[in-house]
């Protein structure tokens, strides 16, 4: 299946692009997405952003789709799903 990734905010500097597509197997879950990111970008993502042992984002990074935060690693993804990723920065 094809997953479209949109990267915004500070994360842009690490992925060096704001949108891209990846191909995962048909039964892929959020965990598989993280595995993919780890395989392709681990060297670009600093330890403060990416937990290399757990192979997932570290700290206040939001991964969401259709205005819903994706938290469950076992959540199944679907073909042509759009997933937004950004590291939260606000103020206050």
């Amino acid at each position, binding site marked *: 299946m094809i997953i479209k990734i949109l990267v915004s905010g500070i994360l842009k500097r690490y992925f060096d692009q704001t949108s891209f597509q990846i191909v995962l197997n048909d039964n892929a879950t959020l965990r598989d997405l993280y595995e993919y990111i780890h395989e392709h970008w681990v060297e670009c993502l600093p330890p403060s952003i990416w937990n290399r042992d757990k192979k997932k984002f570290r700290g*206040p990074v939001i991964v969401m789709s259709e205005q819903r935060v994706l938290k469950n690693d076992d959540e199944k993804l679907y073909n042509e799903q759009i997933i937004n990723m*950004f590291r939260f*920065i606000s103020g206050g």
Partner: protein
Amino acid sequence: MSEVIKGYTAKQLRVSLSDNTIKTEPTDPKVIRKYLGGVGYGAYLLYKELIPGIDPLGEKNKLIFATSPLSLYKIPGGGSITVCFKSPATNGWGESRCGGNFGPDLKAAGFDHIIVEGKSDKPVYLVINDGQAELKCAAHLVGKNVSEKTQLLKSSFPEVASSAMCIGIAGEQLVKFASIMSGDRAAGRCGGGAVMGSKNLQAILVTGTNKILPAEPSLFKDNLRNVTQVIKNNPMSTGFKEYGTIGDMPSNDEDGDWPTKNWQSNSWGKGIEIFDQFQENNFITFKRCYKGCPVACGRIVNVDTGKYKTPRHEGAEYESISVFTAYVMNDDPDVAIHCDYLCNEYGLDTISCGAMIAFAMECYEKDILDQEKTGGLELIWGNSGLLPKLIKMISYRDGIGDILADGVRIAAQKLGSGSDEFAIHVKGLEGPAHDPRSGKALGVTYGTGNRGMCHIQPVEGMAYDRGKMDWGLQEYGLTDPEKYDRWDEKGKGKEVKILQDGMVLPDILSTCKFMMYAGVTLNHWASLLTGLTGWDITGKELLKIGERVVNLQRLFNMREGFSRKDDYLPKRVMETPQFGDYHNQPDCTIHDFDALLDEYYNARGWDKKSGEPTISKIEELGLSEDIEQ
């Protein structure tokens, strides 16, 4: 005054504590149209009614509690109240905003504003219930913590919802950075709690059933639906709810936006570790500070066990935790949360409190303070066990706490020995947990902000430089932040002018600025105002009102003797960090602050030498009739 003001109660309550009189006054429609409410109306009133040179802790100071038509539960960000006064910290313009139910409940009680003047000869509290107000004896409240006071106050109205704002022990002791508390929320910064304490006013309690009906109900309903949808669709509102403001900590540390060890550096390297520990051990759930807030940035937190056991409460804001971690080199979030809780209970501004302790630690490091002067306390960096003790000492003005309670500028004057070099403040207000060595726009906002060194009044410069936020202001001439490097200096002075004029609007409208982070623009605010008031008002006019108010606050300060010299940053804040990731990064330092100020003054139409608004600028903004010339 025959004109009817829609969208307002059109009434203000004037309370004279000296002679125990309370009057209901109509608000002037012309003034309201010009200044709207919040810090705008507060600036108009204080400029008009205060004599320059008065003692901020004397009888002649006034406290203005101000709402606007948007201070309603149904409005995104409407759970808000602003408090305006002459600040005991700066001797200049003072304002604080507090989230919560108090603002909407004041309107439900029948008033847009409360003006408190004079001084009571004994402790009192003010009760406003459906248009009726009275002063009551507050002897039973004196000496109690904020949560106890709040509980006692609200027990006056067991059957109905009510809101209370009160001072804590710090306000009673006239600590110059005492806050006014509304539950766990604070009207912090600038010392409003000390002003309230100086008047012997312990608290204000409001309740009522008054309803504000929109001038154009159908239009208002449509516009409100539109604005709510904008926020719902914006990922920032998700981010706030998921992580709160403390979610900024890791990236701020990484980007050199985390003042560390009393600003000796701008990063520590422990931001992610402290945040992870907090999420794991202390965070319970999100909290809306008022009924229906769509952003819900509040955190419910606790410390379960151990020496710093702390009950569940709303806290752990980024600023409050940062000043009790990076500022003082404490890496235990349990301690920081406990300190934040204590500040709430004592009614102390967390930012100034943490800044004072950091300053004291550096004084100790440099032998300006010793154990004799500190009463045996070892003010060593990272000595986290000291922090709760010092907070109590400051609140009660006990021992070394008495010196620290007057703020860093006065403390440095009293201690001497070169301590003013690391007394980090602008205009007397201690610096918060954002560093202009992460992005230069913040340097301009720190220097020129009317209430002093504040990261959010009226705009967060680092959110423009690093976060690349524009808050919809490109429509009004703001340059796309993507076109700047965060460390560029040229151009930032000009941009800050537009940023300030735009971002002061939530303070004028007494709403929450985070709504603008979640996509609300001046045009959205204008659409809500139009529906509520029937005025034909646009985002462009709101920007002009913003400029008017910023200039009036500036004129207030000028009248108190401020000038260009008071717009400068402490040297340390502009210099290369002494350690950390940016130690060898000269680009991060501010190279030519004079040029930044010149550019800013030019954009403002102010005199380059004095920093004063020119006559033509005053006339352009319609201020001539409201000020002396």
